[in-house]
């Protein structure tokens, strides 16, 4: 009996040691990940916290715990400049991104459907061509596009930014949707065709609804990237009344010599990343899926 107990005890002890080891390791890992994570998002937390500090305390008292809280920065920053408030800028950004999303979703899904399901001459060739455009640096087409849009008289409007969205120029999303559509079971579509459904019908009633997850991912990233697309906005938006949030932040902050309202700048900067946050936290899984499929680096 005693030996039995001993055996049991030692067996229990050795099993416990293993578990303790793992627990310790896991705890340390957790700790490390958390610590590193905090360092990673520290700048962002600092930005958010500072936007609630009075202007003169932001840099004289740079800790994370504010001594006083105020929303004066949001009020003063919101006024924007040139008599145009950030209300206008946000509206401009939202509308522009929404239209871009619609354009991209429609055109990229159409192109993807063609590549994935429709048979036509040279399909492999054109698909390869499209994939090459994925690797093309945008700078190569930059100057001529600018000249082209200028000839059309579109510089100064949103058209140079939005029209390409309706023409499926974002190969990322075409690729994403193609991969997704290829993975859909063909039987449903074939059955529909046998039943007399046209290609368009199949596209609208079967493929699109089934491809919703990929479409959501497309919409998501289109919105985000259009929101953050500083360069094109810098190039094509010329009057402050038409500026988007990203563009407005640039003038708002401008040269070091033109900023005196850092609190306002930080407040507006914080607000400008709110849409990204909201989208991300509500639609996390689509983000991951999108990244995993196409390596989007954001």
């Amino acid at each position, binding site marked *: 009996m005693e030996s039995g107990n001993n055996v049991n005890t030692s067996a229990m002890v050795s099993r416990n040691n293993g578990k303790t080891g793992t627990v310790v390791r896991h705890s340390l890992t957790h700790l490390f990940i958390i610590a590193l994570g905090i360092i990673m998002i520290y700048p962002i937390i600092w930005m958010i916290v500072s936007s609630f500090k009075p202007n003169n305390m932001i840099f004289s008292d740079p800790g994370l715990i504010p001594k006083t809280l105020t929303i004066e920065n949001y009020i003063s920053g919101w006024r924007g400049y040139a008599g145009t408030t950030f209300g206008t800028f946000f509206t401009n950004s939202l509308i522009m991104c929404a239209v871009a999303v619609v354009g991209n979703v429609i055109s990229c899904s159409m192109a993807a459907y063609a590549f994935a399901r429709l048979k036509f001459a040279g399909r492999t060739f054109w698909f390869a061509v*499209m994939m090459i455009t994925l690797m093309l640096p945008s700078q*190569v087409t930059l100057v001529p596009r600018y000249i082209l849009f200028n000839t059309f008289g579109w510089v100064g409007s949103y058209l140079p930014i939005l029209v390409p969205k309706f023409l499926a120029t974002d190969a990322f999303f075409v690729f994403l949707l193609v991969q997704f559509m290829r993975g859909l079971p063909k039987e449903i579509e074939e059955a529909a065709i046998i039943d007399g459904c046209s290609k368009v019908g199949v596209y609208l009633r079967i493929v699109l609804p089934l491809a919703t997850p990929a479409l959501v991912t497309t919409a998501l990233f289109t919105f985000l990237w259009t929101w*953050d697309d500083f360069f094109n906005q810098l190039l094509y938006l010329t009057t402050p009344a038409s500026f988007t949030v990203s563009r407005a932040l640039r003038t708002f902050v401008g040269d070091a010599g033109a900023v005196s309202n850092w609190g306002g700048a930080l407040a507006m900067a914080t607000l400008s990343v709110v849409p990204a946050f909201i989208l991300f936290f509500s639609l996390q899984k689509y983000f991951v899926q999108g990244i995993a499929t196409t390596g989007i680096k954001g």
Partner: protein
Amino acid sequence: MFLAPWLVGFLILTVYPMGHSLLLSFTDYDFTKPDSTQWIGLGNYLKMFGSLFGLSEFTAPTGEVMRVDPYYMKSLSVTFTYVFVSVPLKLIFALAVAMLMNQKLRGVPFYRAVYYIPTLLGGSIAIAVLWRKLFERDGLVNDVLAAIGFTDLPGWITSPDYALGTLILLTVWQFGSSMIIFLAGLKQIPQEFYDAASVDGANKVQQFLRITIPLLSPVILFNLVIQMIGAFQTFTQAYIIGGGRGGVLNSTLFYTLHMYIQGWAYHEMGYASAMAWVLLLIIGLLTAIVFRSSKMWVSYGVGE
């Protein structure tokens, strides 16, 4: 046809501009004086690389004397440094943290979200502005360092030695998306492999080198190419950190920034077009090299 929008877009917005920009690269097109455009053959290209031949000026076919761009090489060196330092660092961090998270931990989705946030926001101008402020001489970073006990701190953003470093830090900070991809890839490696290797007496390092890396190699390749291409095209951050210019002593004169200044601040769009084509060639070449070399280190099957 369903393909119509894409085809139209492709032809008008990709093919035609590419051809046009190639054409422009052989001229001295000035956006504000379009009527005085002249063909200068390889003039723009010589303008870029003339210093390699020891030239500082040369005569174009039109007879006008053209000056070799003294900052072109600088922009190349800045960009190359940026790419070849930041991309490996980024991938190493991404892989390391992904491996850390690959253990059976709780709350991985939450951590994943936290680490992705910098990537989510990092491309925005708001963060670039914030970054510039943080790394100024009187910025937060120096406050923290001073509190730890460092003295005589430089202004990182305004110092020609360190400004590029802050930008490298900014992009490495955004390793989140690479990490997520690595995580997905790691999850696909069956645990049995590691168990079998342990039984065979292999230690962690050997397991890493013999199992993890080879099986992950397609993913590594993928991340490497994507990040490299992206890094070459960095603009917004460089633009903001340098205040619309190249920074002190042009230390942050990224290639795309230089292109922008030449084309839109100095109106030399012929030259900017030439720069774009050279960038395309550089990226194409490096991508091809990476793919070529991948035959040696990437394995696509299990059990090779």
